[in-house]
């Protein structure tokens, strides 16, 4: 690195005059911070993670951090929302597409399992670390669970089977969440996609009974 007067002068220039528009700088800082909070929290745990850790990983200054987020929790929750939004968007694409409900459900499940298996750190952050943030966890879990159940229902057209249990859709979302959560906690996120047949079966039983669920799972 040279210490030419030109470089120093440029260094002191206010933001927005070094070629990158201010919003773009902030956006990339925000993205770096969000990526950093996922990585650090997944390896150290939420409680032991400090804002300093996040800054170090992201290569962003403390002032910039606090311009973007109130605190560690706000940063974590922003990252969490971004990830869940991404997952929901990918699931919507296949689940709300054309075709029979059981087939779309199976494809949506496959996309979900692939998403969580793609990066174990992200999976751990999204599912496990969120439970350790304290009281803030509850409204978020509730909202995301409700969102998942609503999406599940949105894809149930007239051709979809009518379950005999009142809360069958909550049960189905619960099955997906419980299975993925367990695999992630046990460090087996990478192997999630191979659970597709079993999980399809378990999900379908309350809707179509054991025989038809078995047939659909092996399709």
């Amino acid at each position: 690195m040279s210490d030419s007067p030109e470089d120093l002068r440029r260094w002191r220039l206010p933001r927005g005059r070094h070629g990158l528009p201010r919003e773009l700088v902030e956006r990339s800082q925000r993205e770096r911070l969000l990526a950093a909070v996922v990585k650090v929290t997944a390896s150290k745990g939420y409680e032991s993670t400090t804002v300093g850790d996040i800054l170090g990983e992201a290569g962003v200054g403390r002032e910039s951090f606090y311009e973007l987020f109130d605190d560690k929790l706000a940063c974590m929750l922003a990252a969490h929302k971004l990830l869940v939004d991404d997952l929901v968007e990918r699931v919507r694409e296949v689940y709300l597409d054309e075709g029979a409900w059981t087939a779309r459900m199976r494809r949506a499940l496959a996309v979900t399992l692939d998403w969580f298996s793609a990066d174990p750190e992200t999976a751990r952050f999204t599912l496990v670390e969120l439970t350790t943030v304290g009281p803030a966890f509850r409204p978020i879990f509730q909202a995301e669970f409700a969102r998942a159940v609503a999406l599940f229902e949105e894809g149930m057209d007239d051709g979809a089977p009518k379950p005999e249990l009142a809360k069958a859709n909550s049960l189905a979302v619960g099955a997906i969440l419980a299975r993925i959560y367990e695999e992630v906690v046990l460090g087996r996120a990478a192997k999630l996609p191979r659970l597709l047949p079993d999980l399809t079966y378990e999900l379908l039983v309350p809707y179509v009974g054991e025989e038809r669920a078995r047939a659909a799972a092996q399709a």
Partner: protein
Amino acid sequence: MQKHRSSEIAASVLQPTTPLDIGARNQRRRIIDAIVDSCAEKTYAATTITDIVGRARISRTTFYKHFEDKRACFDAAIGYCIEQLQEAAAAAHAVEDTPDDAVRKGAAVVIQALAERPGLAQLLTGDAIAVDPRVIECYRKATIPAIEGLWSGSDGSAKAHSDPRLAFGQAQVLILNQIAIGKADRLPELLPEIVYLAVNPFGGHEAALRQSQLASESAISGVAPGER
């Protein structure tokens, strides 16, 4: 004085602690109640020994007579809670009950107990798992063999219709969600689903639906049919 180490969490569930003298037992109970309440209120991570001794109204010295550290105390508390729920579930049904009926009655009692102590329900389904995910294994050991045992004939094996471990996870998610929406006291509303999940693995889908139906009828009338 008996101390618990973290590794003893499973053992403490299976082997009830040797009876201590009444005074010490009361202290131990107060400490356990205190850590459960404090964790429910501010999470395990944020709970300090000071919080625990303050709530239990005992000295630090007394705390350390019973437990090596916060983690050991927490593990003992979780073990104690599991044990209590297990005993309540076992006492809820009679010898002549069919497995389906026995599971429905056991589930009703456990859900009722959790509804009466929302903090405990929250702790068991959330914080305890975050502290040590292996606790899920303890829950399963406390429930699945007991349920399976109701179905197993003289050969000692029950045919599984679906994975009991998954059913367990589903029940946990449903309960957690009910707590998240601030309706922990209304956990019994979930009874039809919980009963379905509890019966389905070994009783099958049809039996699970029937028991689920019975559970929702009892929720409406307030009394389970055929009980008492």
